[in-house]
């Protein structure tokens, strides 16, 4: 297909994809007092900043920003490395029963998270991890590992084993091969996993709900979710404005990491 056709198809499809975002934006900008649902597509007025202010006041989410940022950076960073190490062990080092170990790790994602929340709360409160930042970091790390191990394991299978053997002949230790050869080759995959998991953690609601309590430990979306309910609370445009505000950092993260995916990799060299 020619470049022009490809660009056109993508642009049209992209515009369709942005329509709900457009709706989100203009409806988050409407003043709650004049909001109606009958003119969804028309921008009526611009009170976005007022709505954002109201959302911050109602949810108290300002206090959650620092801790959420901490979780969303530290946990996926550890998880990416731990997952890459697991993939390296299975693929490059040919760990015995590698598939079984892989299934064991991957199996950590197959059950619905709701099922383990209550025993986790129980265990956390017994081990004094409940409502601590450390406790939140390790649970987010653990939950990010299976995805990371899965992607990295499969990514590494794309690298010829001769790369590993060549490094061994050079006298490099496995640790060094992992750090200096495999990780750099996988940089785009590592970044992709990192941003996807950071986004997931940033937007997490459930774990934060059950495992934390104080305003400075609770993650941001858990704080935000509190303001919407049948029993009064925020109006829809306020909820949307809050949702928009919370999404801003992740959208920016996606914007700034795009350059990692712009170029192909010269694999194997």
């Amino acid at each position: 297909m020619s470049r022009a056709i490809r660009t056109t198809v993508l642009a049209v499809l992209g515009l369709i994809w942005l329509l709900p975002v457009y709706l989100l934006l203009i409806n988050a900008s409407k003043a709650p007092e004049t909001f109606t649902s009958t003119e969804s597509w028309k921008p009526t007025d611009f009170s976005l900043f007022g709505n954002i202010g109201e959302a911050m006041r109602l949810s108290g989410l300002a206090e959650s920003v620092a801790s959420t940022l901490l979780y969303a950076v530290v946990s996926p960073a550890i998880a990416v490395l731990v997952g890459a190490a697991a993939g390296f062990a299975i693929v490059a080092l040919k760990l015995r029963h590698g598939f079984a170990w892989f299934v064991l790790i991957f199996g950590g994602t197959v059950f619905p998270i709701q099922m383990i929340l209550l025993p986790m709360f129980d265990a956390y409160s017994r081990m004094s991890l409940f409502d601590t930042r450390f406790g939140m970091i390790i649970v987010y790390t653990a939950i990010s590992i299976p995805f990371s191990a899965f992607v990295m394991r499969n990514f590494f299978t794309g690298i010829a084993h001769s790369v590993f053997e060549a490094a061994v002949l050079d006298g490099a230790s496995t640790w060094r091969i992992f750090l200096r050869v495999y990780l750099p080759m996988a940089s785009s995959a590592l970044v992709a996993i990192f941003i996807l998991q950071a986004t997931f953690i940033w937007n997490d609601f459930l774990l934060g709900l059950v495992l934390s309590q104080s305003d400075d430990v609770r993650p941001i979306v858990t704080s935000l979710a509190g303001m919407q309910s049948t029993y009064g609370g925020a109006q829809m445009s306020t909820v949307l404005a809050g949702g928009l505000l919370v999404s801003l950092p992740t959208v920016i993260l996606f914007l700034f990491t795009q350059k990692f995916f712009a170029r192909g990799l010269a694999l194997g060299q």
Partner: protein
Amino acid sequence: MTDKTPTAKTPGQRYRWSARGFIAPGVFLVAVLLYLPLLWTTFLSFTDYNGLGDPEWIGIENYVEMFDDPQFIGSVLNTLLWVGGTLLVPVGIGLGVALLTWNLKGGVWLRLPFLIPYALSGIGVAVIWSFILGSNGALDQALAAFGIADTPRWLVDSPLNTVVMILATSWQAVGVNALLFTIGLQSIPKEPLEAAKLDGATGFRLFRSILWPMLRPLTVVVIGLSIVASLKTFDIVQGMTKGGPGRSSETLALTMYRETFVNSEYGLGSAIAVFLTIVTLAAAILYLRQQLSSKNEG
């Protein structure tokens, strides 16, 4: 983590300890934080427990009750619809977007619209899609502008409600899949590609002969993740229809939630969770075994 003295062993034996050292942190964290609580859940599935007092052992009664519930079949069918639907739509479009943006000038920016929905918080997504799909909502208003007034009740009529929720999920999931496929495309070595191009392979033939086989490691990831995620579909349905009207759009994860959290039947809810886990794990193992069997597995 030290290397053993090199001898004439296979790599698997030679790096046995090193390999164990590399995989240990992952196994440890997952086992302690995810599997231990799951064991407790499995234990609960054989008990009668309302969250207060102590669980009472009742054997397989919960499993019997689970299969007795006529709605259970409905939930299984809805869940299967989710699995099929999310394999078809977001995986397909994701692959399409990745291929179209590959090696395209400005492709990075053309891919961005598909990634933004993933970056949005779940609250905003559920609210905005309810807003779009509700009766006389944004979609109906748009259709009315084109003269289409007689629209179905998107979120009320079954199984239409499940179908439109699958589309809403696709909206969010396409970007991730496109990103993963893009990584796959980038990891394709240049030489065979150049060689194929020199042979005159373009378009679909290039895709079939070179790209598709080379994409396989990442295709496995995308499909594997899609199956697992769709089997435990919860958030969007809970956010939009709560499984209703009646129980018409309930998935297995919602049935589990209903018994555990709404009815405080922890035993029955746990039994559904165990069933769901076994099905998902079986599907994942079967799929992965088949896909990975030709690879040089240790």
